[in-house]
């Protein structure tokens, strides 16, 4: 059964159609990757699922329930977590409290209990901390637990953001370019984590990624989009060799795997 269903989704900014009648399904327990050239509308799709953007047309279903018009803060409660392309962490807090902020949807205390820090507030804090420690162990963030985000290197911050999303305890994880700007080793770590999240935690992952090495390694299915429209869908290799995809990246008449080469050159 599909966990996420996107039906004829469209959004227009002014006259520009950023996403145009796109439909896809993400099955429970799979890693589904969106690929496409810059400006293809991939992050816009994420932003509509996160309810930051209001779609002009179409519907989004999660777990059989329509979420097209829910307020943004209800999305995490349902079990959808996300990361951002350009890291959006809480820079002045420590890694630990960033992860704890991910536990917000599970809070059981009211403001007044927090003010008085009642027994229940303490118990709540302990349980959040236990859950967060699991995430810290999983992502090997022990060394950075009490460091301020502002002082951390880029690669670590990228991991912390994944950790914060995991702390929500989601069913569906949206990863927006988890490997961009990471070294080859760090990218390999991300690949392993994605595998583990899928196998051990039973997470469903919807990912945007340009690094075709990573995409091939972890994706069950890949959807290529260009100009907000459906281009091709299938396994990583099927999509990569699809003539429309090649044309979208390179124009006509050239063969090859441009994105992969670019990443290799950069790494």
């Amino acid at each position, binding site marked *: 059964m599909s966990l996420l269903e996107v039906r004829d989704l469209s959004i227009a900014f002014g006259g520009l159609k950023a996403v145009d009648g796109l439909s896809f399904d993400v099955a429970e327990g799979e890693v589904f990757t969106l690929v496409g050239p810059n400006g293809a509308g991939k992050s816009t799709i994420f932003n509509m699922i*996160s309810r930051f953007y209001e779609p002009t047309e179409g519907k989004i279903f999660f777990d059989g329930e329509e979420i097209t018009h829910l307020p943004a803060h209800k999305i995490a409660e349902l079990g959808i977590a996300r990361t951002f392309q350009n890291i959006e962490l809480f820079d002045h807090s420590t890694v630990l409290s960033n992860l704890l902020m991910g536990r917000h949807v599970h809070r059981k205390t009211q403001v007044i209990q*927090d003010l008085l820090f009642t027994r229940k507030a303490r118990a709540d804090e*302990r349980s959040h901390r236990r859950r967060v420690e699991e995430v810290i162990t999983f992502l090997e963030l022990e060394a950075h637990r009490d460091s301020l985000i502002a002082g951390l290197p880029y690669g670590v911050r990228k991991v912390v953001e994944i950790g914060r999303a995991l702390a929500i305890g989601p069913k569906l994880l949206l990863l927006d370019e988890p490997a961009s700007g990471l070294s080859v080793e760090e990218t390999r770590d991300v690949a392993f984590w994605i595998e583990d999240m899928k196998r051990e935690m039973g997470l469903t992952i919807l990912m945007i990624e340009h690094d075709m090495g990573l995409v091939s390694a972890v994706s069950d299915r890949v959807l290529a989009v260009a100009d907000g429209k459906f281009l091709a869908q299938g396994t990583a290799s099927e999509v990569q060799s699809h003539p429309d995809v090649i044309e979208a990246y390179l124009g006509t008449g050239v063969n090859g795997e441009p994105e992969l080469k670019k990443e290799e050159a950069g790494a």
Partner: protein
Amino acid sequence: MKVIFKKSYDRDIDLFKDRQTALRIGLLVLVLVLVPFFASDYFLAEATNTLIWSLAGLGLMVLVGHTGQVSLGHAAFLAIGAYTDAALMNAGWPWLLAFLTAGAVTGVFGAIIAIPAIRMSGIYLAIATMALAVLVEEAVILAEPITGGVAGVFAPDIAIFGISFGRYDSLPNFYWLCLAVVVIVTFGYANLLRSATGRSFLAVRDSEISARALGINVSRTKTLAFGLSCAITGLAGGLMGHFFSFFNYEAFTIIISINLLLAVTIGGLGHIQGAFAGAILITAVPQVLAIVRDGLSNIGVDLSGVPGLDTLVFSLILIGFIIYEPLGIYGRYLKIKAFWDLFPLSRRDMFRRQMTYLKTERMK
């Protein structure tokens, strides 16, 4: 550097990070409790004033330092607190009830103000709150039956179970009362910061977009922050009214709003300690200047004919801080402390990237 071995999560949840810190804070409170036994009346009045400013600073700090919402209108909430408290007491209410009601009324008012204010950001919020302060000032003058209009209103002396806490006839008692309120509010504030509510404030301050993605209702959080901030400021206003005994709208002008914001900024945004540091500075500058002025007149330099000197000094200190230490007094203290803790291993750029808390860039 002292290394703390943590054997349980409670070590991170507890209010104080180790016994030494708890002892130090306890000692500080004890010293503050003992002040009336060795201080002159004049000094004690100043200390009381500092406590009340600290309380107001704590209120503003919730909003500016921890939720990232600028307010240039907090004098309005001081005024609402002061007039509500005075009016209720004049109507025969006992102090405690009037005082708490004043805080609650101000809090509710702040939460109502938040409904339009949460849609604004940065500079617009600052200007809107400033306009609000002007409007409240006018409203105070017009609402003569409650506020006494231009003439002002009298805040009756506090008495609890027949014991006087009057500003003039039993200043030590009034001082202890203020101290108790400050300690209780600080305790609640510190609790807030170590729990989910406080974290949601910080989340909204540092990245609204992330906060929403984590399931934090940004509007609700900002409304709550406004409410709490204004409630605390309202309590401070209530005490301030008693401190003045007799006051009119001029006690709560826009300049007070500005001074309060400047105080918490110099003190150090984002730290409870910053509110106290700022309050101490703003109440101490005129005192220190008076001493300097006396000293100079002894050697023949007369500064008594120069009005507004304390504002000038305060402004210059502020300019210095904004340029050279945007983290404020407490931020500078943390840096010096880190330097000595790590001596000789500290790096110059350790604090480089955590400049200031309020980011309201023009977004493109």
